[in-house]
Each structure stands twice: as C-alpha cells, then as structure tokens.
C-alpha cells in the first residue's frame, strides 16, 4: 500500500497552539491591586488544566504588578502553566506579539481571552490574525473546534514541560562560556532507540506530516498505514526519544526500514526540527548501520529530493552512503557497512534491540 501523498500544506495546522489569558476579571474576580484577596473564576482551574492536557500552551497578558500577580498565581498553584507571562503596563497587543515570538508560533495560532472590549479591540486592530475571546465565554473555550487539535499524541500532555525544559536549556546555553561542543557535553544527552509501539503512532504520523528539513522522502504516512507497518514482519519502525538533564524532548526521530532476507531499505528517516544540530540524524544512521552489519544484510536507503530536504541527503552522504540507482525522482543509496563512525561523544545511545 503506497503512503499517503498528502501535501503538507493541506494539513496545515490552524489549531490554537497558545491561549493568552488576562488576569483581572478574567482569570479571577475583581482587580488585584484593589483587592488582594481575589477569588478565581469558577471552573477556570479545570479549564486551564484541560487546555494543558491537550498540548495547548498558555500564557498571560495582564496590566498588573508583576510580582504581586505572579505571587497570586503561584498561591493558586497555576503559575506553572504559563510560559513567558507578560505582566506589565504595556499594550496587550505588544504582549501577545512577544509571547508568540518567544514560543516560535504564528499569530494565527493564538487565542486571547480578556473581559474588556477595548483590550480585545486593540489586539484585533494590531494583530488581526489573533482569535480574541470575551472572558464571559470562557466556559465554552474547550468546545471551540480550533481548540480541539487533531494530533493528540502521547506527548500532548507534556508539551508545556518540554517547552519549559527548552527555556532552561537555552538560558543555560547563553550563560555558558565555552563553545557549542562543550555545552552539548554538559547536557548529559541520552537517545533511546526502540521499536515503535501503538502509543507512538500518532506522534510518528505527526512527524511525517510536520517535518520538512530532515525528511528523506517527504512522503506522509497516515495512522492506519503506520499501524500496519509497525506490525508487519517485513518492516521495522523505529523511534528515537531524547532526554537530557533539563528534561525530556520526547520522540524526535523515526526510521522506517523495509526488510527482505538479504537487503534492508531505509524507506524513511526523519528527525524533528526541534533537535536540529544535536546530531540526532547521525545517531540514527549510525544505529541502523550497526544493526544491519550485525544482521549481515545489505543496507540501502531511499531518497526523494525536494527543495527543503538537502540536509538529509547531505547527512546520508557524509555518513558514507553513496548513490547506486536513480528512478525518476527516487534515488537509491547504499552503504557498505565499513568505517562506521563512533557516536558523538556528547550523546549516550540506548536501545532495547539487541
């Protein structure tokens, strides 16, 4: 069965990736500076937790005293849910823009909740792509179609934590006084390569659709096909997870290998742009080379070039693959399984396979 040849654009995500909350009369009743003893809006905590569980990030845009507001949020045990909070006396549109920027998301994936008409108008005026929501309708937030993402993967519930780990990692990197190599060594990076299980399939599907650069064919694979392939004895579907001292980065690589008795063909190799420049592509290739050598099979890899995946081709070549055939836009590469480079010194590779 051929993989879905869906264009990545038609599956473009218009779902909300971040909800930005106002505080006074939105998150809590009343105005903090007038009455320090504000009470949370009914059910808001459950709503925030549900948004978080769906893998949607959250932040704050509030005109308030930062210390006081953050202290209050901490007392409510809510502070941990909010990334890059903008609590100051500036314009809400500036705050929302800053948040989107820091999270690396586009404005059309942001929702802004505020009780005040003029604040919502201001944000809509400067940032027309942002979805503005009257706080009076907060209890309907979770029902909005755009708040129900298609991809609830096994990572959705830890997405915020992964972002927070990333913030800490970046901070550590900018404080670090050595070079990038030395910094990577301080991370204590572990990559675990294992056979994909059923709970991985949504994330694998997401990777095939979302990843453009380190993607060796650009073909997308739907859930059903992946489920069949993961159970087929003629195929090996591998995933790679990464974690370091700051926390987990989740599943950041996948490889689909078609296995005949004497020849293996890597049909697809993907690494997430989340971890570009950590050396993961090379690690996956190195692992596959070792496995093929151990199994005494010939190893080949398919490549379909497009305008974004040159990086993946270069990585195959720089790890010793060479071209053996070309059919239309499909390039066949091969590796003679000699001169397999050691893994980078900053990564520890673990595997459940022999």
């Amino acid at each position: 069965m051929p993989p879905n040849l869906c264009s990545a654009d038609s599956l473009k995500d218009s779902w909300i990736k971040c909800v930005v909350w106002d505080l006074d009369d939105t998150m809590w009743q009343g105005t903090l500076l007038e009455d320090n003893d504000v009470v949370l809006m009914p059910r808001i905590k459950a709503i925030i937790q549900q948004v978080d569980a769906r893998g949607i990030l959250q932040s704050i845009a509030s005109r308030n005293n930062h210390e006081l507001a953050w202290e209050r949020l901490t007392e409510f045990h809510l502070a941990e849910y909010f990334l890059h909070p903008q609590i100051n006396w500036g314009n809400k549109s500036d705050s929302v823009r800053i948040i989107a920027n820091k999270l690396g998301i586009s404005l059309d994936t942001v929702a802004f909740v505020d009780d005040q008409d003029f604040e919502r108008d201001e944000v809509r005026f400067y940032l027309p792509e942002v979805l503005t929501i009257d706080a009076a309708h907060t209890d309907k937030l979770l029902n909005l179609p755009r708040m129900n993402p298609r991809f609830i993967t096994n990572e959705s519930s830890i997405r915020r934590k992964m972002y927070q780990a990333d913030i800490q990692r970046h901070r550590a990197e900018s404080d670090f006084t050595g070079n990038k190599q030395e910094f990577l060594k301080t991370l204590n990076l572990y990559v675990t390569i294992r056979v994909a299980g059923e709970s991985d399939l949504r994330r694998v599907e997401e990777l095939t659709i979302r990843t453009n650069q380190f993607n060796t064919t650009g073909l997308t694979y739907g859930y059903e096909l992946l489920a069949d392939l993961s159970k087929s004895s003629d195929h090996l579907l591998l995933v790679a997870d990464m974690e370091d001292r700051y926390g987990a980065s989740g599943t950041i690589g996948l490889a689909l290998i078609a296995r005949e008795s004497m020849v293996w063909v890597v049909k697809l190799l993907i690494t997430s742009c989340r971890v570009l420049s950590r050396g993961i592509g090379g690690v996956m290739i190195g692992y596959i080379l070792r496995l093929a050598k151990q199994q005494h099979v010939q190893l080949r890899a398919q490549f379909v070039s497009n305008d974004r995946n040159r990086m993946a081709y270069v990585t195959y070549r720089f790890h010793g693959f060479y071209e053996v055939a070309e059919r239309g836009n499909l390039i066949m590469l091969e590796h003679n399984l000699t001169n397999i480079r050691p893994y980078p010194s900053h990564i520890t590779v673990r595997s459940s396979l022999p």
Partner: protein
Amino acid sequence: MDARARIRGYFVSAAEQEIRDEDDIFELGIVDSLFAIRLIQFVEKEFAITVEREDLDIRNFCSIAALTKFALQKMSTATPLEQQRHPSPKD
C-alpha cells in the same frame, strides 16, 4: 585572502575552536547536519560554485585542506556564467 585562509576562517568561527588544516572535522565531532548544510552553502556562495550530488563525497569535505582543494578544482572548471556571478581573485 586566499581560499585556504577563507575556509579556515569560516571553520574556526563556525566551530568556535581552533582547527588545523589536516584535522578530520568529522572525527572532531563538530559536524552535524545543520553545520554541514551551512558549510556547503558557505562554499557555494564564497567561491561561486555549485556543489552537486556527486561532489558530496566525504573526502572533499573532511578537512580544511581537502575542502580547499575541492573548491579550487571546482572553480577552475566553473562555467563562465558561474564565474560572472561572483568574481573572486584566484590564488
């Protein structure tokens, strides 16, 4: 600045460390896919050459010395159109 010096300059600033001309950059562990693609783009732009698929042999890129030799060789066989795009002094 000659080709070798320009290539050395790029490597040292991209890798943020001193590298000798004959050092194998892959063994040094500084090359990941992003580094590799940027290196190729640098060489293409700096020397007005096109790195084709068949050029992506590791032997052309494994050291400052190897890359210099490759770049010079490509420049000497470059078409007039390529040379026009980015005239640079040969050495």
